[in-house]
């Protein structure tokens, strides 16, 4: 394992803690109807986004999924503008046009969370190709779930990345389930990273509950991509402690046993990692917690005071160049 500085190690925790608390605040706000709709929480999977994004530079690109808050925070997304977007406010990243599933910040290389499973992977390939064509050594990461590995667009993207040796890293967040569908039933493979062999690229499986293991795997894959070695597939074994989305409880569906959830909870990175930091006296996690709390408090306050968009704005922003009658009005 590469040598990590104290700052990096503390940074991992700060990011993971921010994601965890962000998600918990989101649930509270949904329950209070301050955030409309539902959200796909990342609780349990924080080590994946954190380990991967901390291996990236600001000019690198990510494409995210429907479960995107963690990726965006880890890539440097501003909790204020994220929270404002979730509330549908003008100060939100997407000015209220995207919500939870579509947060994007092109300046930070966040090419969007995406509501269509697997759809971000080809887009990441395009960002990777553009970086190369412009003579830059930028890298693109495509995040996707285990369920997405059965989606055509993703498999096609793996092939494109491989034949053109694009500087892209395919990060599979294997949390075991696609909504209620267990990957054990939906794939013949024990190890999803074995798919990589079919595309002639390295496929690595790491413990997705261990931020240092994820980071190490990501660092290798990113270095390979950056130096012209082409794409890699990084499977991170993880688990979501909560439902597929915030409305799942109301559906009353059951597809996982309590024992299974409890088993994974024993490996909660937000318990094991701060314990590890404390043990080695790298930092006092409580201090980080306090700082994170302040950031989120401020983010919620900021989002609350941001105005809702004016209704007349609803047709703005679709085209870079507009024409009379375009976009068409609905009335």
């Amino acid at each position, binding site marked *: 394992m590469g040598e990590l500085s104290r700052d990096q190690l503390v940074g991992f925790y700060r990011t993971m803690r921010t994601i965890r608390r962000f998600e918990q605040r989101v649930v509270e706000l949904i329950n209070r109807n301050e955030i409309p709709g539902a959200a796909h929480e990342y609780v349990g999977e924080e080590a994946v986004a954190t380990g991967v994004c901390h291996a990236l530079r600001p000019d690198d*690109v990510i*494409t995210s999924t429907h479960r995107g808050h963690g990726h965006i925070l880890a890539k440097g997304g501003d909790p204020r503008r994220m929270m404002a977007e979730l509330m549908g406010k003008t100060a*939100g*990243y*997407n*000015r*209220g*046009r*995207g919500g939870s599933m*579509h947060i*994007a*910040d*092109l300046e930070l290389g966040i*090419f*969007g969370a*995406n*509501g*269509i499973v697997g*759809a971000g*992977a*080809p*887009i*990441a*390939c*395009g*960002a*990777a*190709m*553009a*970086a190369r*064509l*412009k003579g830059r050594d930028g890298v*693109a990461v495509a995040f996707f779930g285990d369920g997405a590995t059965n989606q*055509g*667009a993703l498999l*096609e*993207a793996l*092939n*494109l990345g491989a*034949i*053109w040796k694009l500087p892209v890293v395919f990060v599979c967040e294997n949390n075991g389930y696609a909504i209620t569908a267990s990957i054990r039933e939906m794939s013949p493979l024990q190890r999803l990273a074995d798919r990589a062999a079919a595309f002639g690229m390295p496929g690595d499986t790491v413990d997705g509950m261990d931020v240092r293991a994820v980071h190490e795997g990501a660092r290798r894959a990113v270095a390979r991509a950056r130096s012209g070695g082409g794409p890699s597939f990084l499977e991170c074994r993880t688990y979501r402690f909560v439902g597929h989305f915030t409305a799942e409880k109301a559906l009353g569906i059951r597809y996982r046993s309590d024992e299974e959830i409890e088993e994974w909870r024993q490996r909660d990175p937000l318990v094991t990692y701060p314990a590890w930091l404390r043990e080695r006296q790298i930092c006092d996690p409580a201090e980080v917690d306090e700082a994170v709390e302040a950031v989120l408090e401020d983010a919620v306050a900021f989002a609350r005071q941001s105005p809702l968009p004016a209704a007349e704005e609803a047709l*703005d*922003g*679709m*085209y*870079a*160049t507009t*024409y*009379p*009658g*375009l*976009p*068409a009005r609905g009335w």
Partner: protein
Amino acid sequence: MRELRYLEAMREGLFEEMRRDSSVIVLGEDVRHSVRGLTKGIIGEFGPARIYDTPISEAAFTGLATGAALAGMRPVVEYQINALLFVAFDQLVDQAQKLRYMMGGQGTIPVTYVITASGARRALAGQHSDHPYPLLLHMGMKTVMPTTPEDAKGLFKAAIREDDPVVVFSPAALLATKGPVPDGDYVTPLGRARVARAGADLTIVAVGPLVPEALAAAETLAQEGISAEVIDPRSLLPLDAETLLASARKTGHVVLFDDSNRTCGFAAELAALFADRAWEALRAPVRRITRADVPVPFSTPLESVVLPSRERLLEACRGCLAGVKA
């Protein structure tokens, strides 16, 4: 002026834009050997960094173009056949077309999609004869369909320069037709219709491969003493509604001649436009001659019943003027 074939004119336009702007890249199946002819010789001039023969992966190369565009390139994506739009549909309408709006206006997605042989030719049957532009218009996607070599070059160049996704339909039936093409650099701007023939009694709005048919029909009508105006919208979105409406207000009679399916087709949209905004000038109900809502059949006699024809257009024009209900 020089005479060029439609496809040659498009090709010239593509090469000019690639010379002008190094961010233009081309992706598609077999583009180096150019089965269709649009990209003939392109690899020799521009080299492998800008020209990509893709695997048969329409979703992935369409999505790749979106990502590359968001990161500053101007990809031109060629689809070998019209039906491939269906295969890439999510990446077209859910991604390329929606992302800018959904991102709150961040970024631009200057991708040009060329359907190099759209519509029916002869005997290609159901999966190679579609003209699916209404699906894209429905999603708000900028769409053009040039019908002359001059416009083929000019609209293609305009599409490449546009900062939004633009779909260019080049009808299979027109690819080999010849016509005058101006020398030098020019573009045909989006959003302006072309009055292909001026007339006073009746307006025919004809789309794509039906424009030459409509002009021929107008000749026949002229011999009967009927003066038909033929309008080629050529830019379907943005649409030059004013030119269409001005013609309808002048003639009071409108017949729509469209090579897409009938239900929720482009002609249905135009019929609503005339009803909304030229009602007071209309002296007869708007008529539409379109494709039937079945897959285009293989056998010639069946095919000719399903596709819109000049004969049926003539009948509709005469009926419209005589005040006979459709």
